[in-house]
């Protein structure tokens, strides 16, 4: 077992270096100190002792997502996640969430294209229970046809709820199909009904063996416990779960896009046109990501942003506008979404967005805008690390997504180091017409039982 120890608890310390040119006093630096350990079977363990509240939070992040699916089995990673609540050798079907909620805890599991996470927060006296249940399903998931059929139905209802029965549901799904070329990100995480129907018990068992191995996971525990005791309990329950060969790699780096991509859908459930715009960017946590985050904050972060002020408030073209940067393991995206006022034309809105993008590439942003991006990021960061559960989730996610859990402590510095010149440079580099994908959704008269169909 290797151990890298950083300290004991969440603590405050004064930053050693003044920020050059800052008008305000140097803000207090905040760190999340964690220790790292690797068990004999390859399971990475991260521990944060924090005795300020009597809670414990556990996160198990698996290095798998819908990126690892193959054609014909879309939606499988997420369907599998549901199976993880259906029981294992010593934990009954549904018992996991039953025990957590019955003992005053909260929990969930989520699947994205890049990773699958399971987490629970509980009163501090239930740490052993949480570790026992996570270990038992990592070791001995109990897979049957009846359980698979049961969760297939729940997942298909989830698809209906979020996609098929929602305005713009199909548009979000279609967007990735147009935006991406490589299969890993080209299909939706929820998957198609047809593929969900095709998933077999054998597929579940195979997926479990390949991806749910201890050497393909990170266990993070944050809260009110003694580290040595927690580590001993973790070793007791996890360390003899057998290691598996490393999963096959997936190519998630997109070829350079050379021409704009554009599509129009009609949607009988929509009552106003919507525009989705995405620009290809690099991989998560690369050297340009901090500047892209600042760029997004200035362009579309909140009601002080340029897009909101110009297109929603001044020109009154949209009922909603905003966006974000998605940092992925592979090629990510810079997204803008606008919901067009019923009395306005999508092409006018689109042109207005490009006008603002042109302006940000041509002139440097204002000092206050840079300050805004820094402070908004700082407040968001501080809020995000307040709860034990969030800290556990961030550490686990950063480890899988960026191979760097300590990013929890360095991200703010990266944002603070971004200059006005950097913002202009990344705007010019990425927000270009040839890197762009545009999907417009138009309301259509209701057609009986017809899902939104691709347009011409």
């Amino acid at each position, binding site marked *: 077992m290797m151990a890298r120890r950083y300290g004991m608890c969440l603590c405050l310390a004064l930053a050693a270096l003044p920020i050059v040119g800052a008008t305000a006093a140097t803000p207090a630096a905040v760190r999340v100190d964690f220790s790292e350990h690797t068990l004999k079977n390859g399971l990475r363990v991260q521990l944060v002792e924090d005795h300020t509240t009597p809670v414990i939070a556990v996160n198990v992040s698996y290095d798998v997502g819908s990126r690892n699916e193959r054609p014909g089995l879309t939606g499988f990673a997420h369907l599998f*996640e549901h199976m*993880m609540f259906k029981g294992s050798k010593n934990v009954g079907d549904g018992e996991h969430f039953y025990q957590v909620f019955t003992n005053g805890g909260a929990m969930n599991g*989520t699947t994205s294209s890049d990773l699958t996470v399971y987490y629970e927060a509980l009163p501090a006296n239930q740490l052993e229970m949480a570790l026992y249940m996570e270990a038992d399903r990592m070791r001995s998931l109990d897979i049957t046809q009846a359980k698979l059929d049961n969760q297939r139905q729940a997942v298909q209802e989830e698809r209906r709820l979020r996609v098929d029965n929602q305005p713009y549901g199909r548009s979000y799904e279609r967007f990735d199909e147009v935006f991406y070329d490589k299969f890993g990100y080209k299909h939706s995480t929820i998957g198609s009904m047809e593929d969900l129907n095709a998933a077999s018990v054998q597929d579940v068992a195979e997926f479990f063996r390949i991806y749910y191995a201890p050497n393909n996971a990170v266990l993070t525990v944050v809260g009110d416990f003694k580290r040595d005791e927690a580590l001993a309990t973790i070793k007791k329950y996890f360390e003899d779960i057998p290691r598996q060969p490393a999963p096959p790699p997936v190519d998630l780096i997109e070829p350079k896009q050379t021409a704009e991509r554009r599509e129009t859908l009609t949607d009988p459930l929509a*009552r106003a046109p919507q525009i989705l715009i995405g620009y290809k960017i690099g991989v998560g946590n690369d050297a340009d990501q901090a500047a892209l985050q600042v760029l997004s904050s200035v362009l579309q972060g909140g009601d002080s942003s340029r897009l909101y002020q110009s297109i929603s408030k001044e020109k009154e073209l949209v009922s909603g506008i905003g966006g974000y940067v998605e940092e992925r393991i592979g090629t990510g995206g810079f997204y803008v979404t606008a919901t067009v006022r*019923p009395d306005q034309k999508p092409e006018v809105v689109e042109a207005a967005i490009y006008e603002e993008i042109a302006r940000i590439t041509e002139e440097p942003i204002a000092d206050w805008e840079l300050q805004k991006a820094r402070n908004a990021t700082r*407040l968001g960061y501080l809020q995000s690390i307040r709860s034990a559960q969030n800290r556990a989730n961030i550490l686990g996610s950063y480890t899988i997504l960026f191979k760097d859990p300590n990013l929890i402590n360095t991200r703010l510095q990266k944002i603070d180091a971004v200059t006005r010149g950097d913002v202009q440079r990344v705007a010019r580099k990425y927000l270009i017409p040839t890197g762009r994908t545009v999907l417009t959704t138009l309301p259509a008269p209701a057609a009986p039982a017809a899902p939104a169909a691709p347009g011409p």
Partner: protein
Amino acid sequence: MNTVTHKNTVLALLSSLLFVQASAQAPTPPGSAAPAGASTKGVELKGKVPVNPQTLRVQLPKPQEAVLKNGLRVSLLEDHKLPTFSMQLYFNGGGLADPADKRGVAMVTASQLREGTKQRSSREIAEQLATLGAALSSTAGPASGESVVSVTGLSDNVEQTLAIASDVIRNPTFPASELDKFRARFLAQLQIQRANPGFQAQEQFMRAIYGEHPGALVVPSEPVIKGLTSADLAAFHAARYRPNNAFLIAHGDITLKDLVAKLEHHFGDWAKADLNKVSLPPPKGPEKARVLLVDRPGSVQTSLWIGSLGIERNSDDYFAMLVMNHILGGGPASRLFMNLREDKGYTYGVYSSFTGTTFPGVVVASTDVRTAVTEGAMHELDFELQRIANEPVTERELTNARRALIGRFALSLDSPLSLMGNLATQKIYKLPADYWDTYPQRVEAITPADIQRVAKKYYDRGQLQIIAVGDAKQVGKVLEKYGAVEPATPM
């Protein structure tokens, strides 16, 4: 309402459970349930999990309190863990204080607070707050008892943040041009919201329960929104946004001495005013059971909301209702979830909830199910609502409900918003000072007979309102079993 739905919130993160906590303020989104037989039909307990039998008892932190010279009452939960602060200013008088012909004034007043002051334009307010890394929002609902302003920021910037907050809270000018823009934006957004079947079901349900009472309004009516003037907002503001009509709850990296000094500086000369007491006749509730169907041709799911009129927050039935709701549909370990989702696979989520403020709230069980199983889902929902009313809950269900409801206090200590919410609840409803300390005993006092009694009383079959939003051609017949189906007009 300025945000748009980002694609990743829709598709990228798929949760295995969509757990919606029952809330005393608002109904949960659609969900529903159906039973089968044993209450834990969907769960299998193997008895091997090392559960600590002790429920961790915790003390909620006690606030430090002060009163400003102008009468504003201040409570602080001091916490230096992180260099941030939050405060919430509660004014007595939300939508319930609206003029009867202008139900919506409180909501629009709150939403227009930061759209201009004597010193700052809307844009300057947005830019200055953003530059400080601060967030300020204000809300009131058409049926809320309070208008609430929330401020969060970096503790390095408390002084500057409070300067802007004070200007926004005390000196809004409600420019007509901003109100016009708001109106157009709001009506466009409303059109989009009303495309959502869950929202449609909620609007229909509230109207069925409350009739003419403002509790019926999820959002104000379009004619009211179109007719409001700046003068309406200014009048509401002048009457309600007053220091002697408010209390302030703060949390974070600041001492009481420092907080009070800063508040006296920025709010000290804020004038008191004579206050009108809000009084409103209580809602009558539904006179008879009804089945309302909103036709959504081609809908692949049916949204179902079933319930009736419930209790006030101060009701003697509160704790019985709390425990009953927990067992019926208060989360994934509940009867509804275990039956309709885990056993039957009809739905992604099904929950029950209850609300209640100074007037009686609702009790409701809700879900979205695929169209083809609407009949089965209705059967199971009906079964569970009857079972909880007609049979005592098991000893194990009761024990588990107690463990859950008491045990979750520990988690609330890790959530300043929960702690602030608890304090606000205590103040708004004038609950005793030891209310949260004695909460566990009150939960433990509830018996199976109490649970059965409140289930029978509030999920009374003679008053049950059943709302369905779905494809009428396919589900109309199915619903007739539960009463004459009335077509409901979408709002």
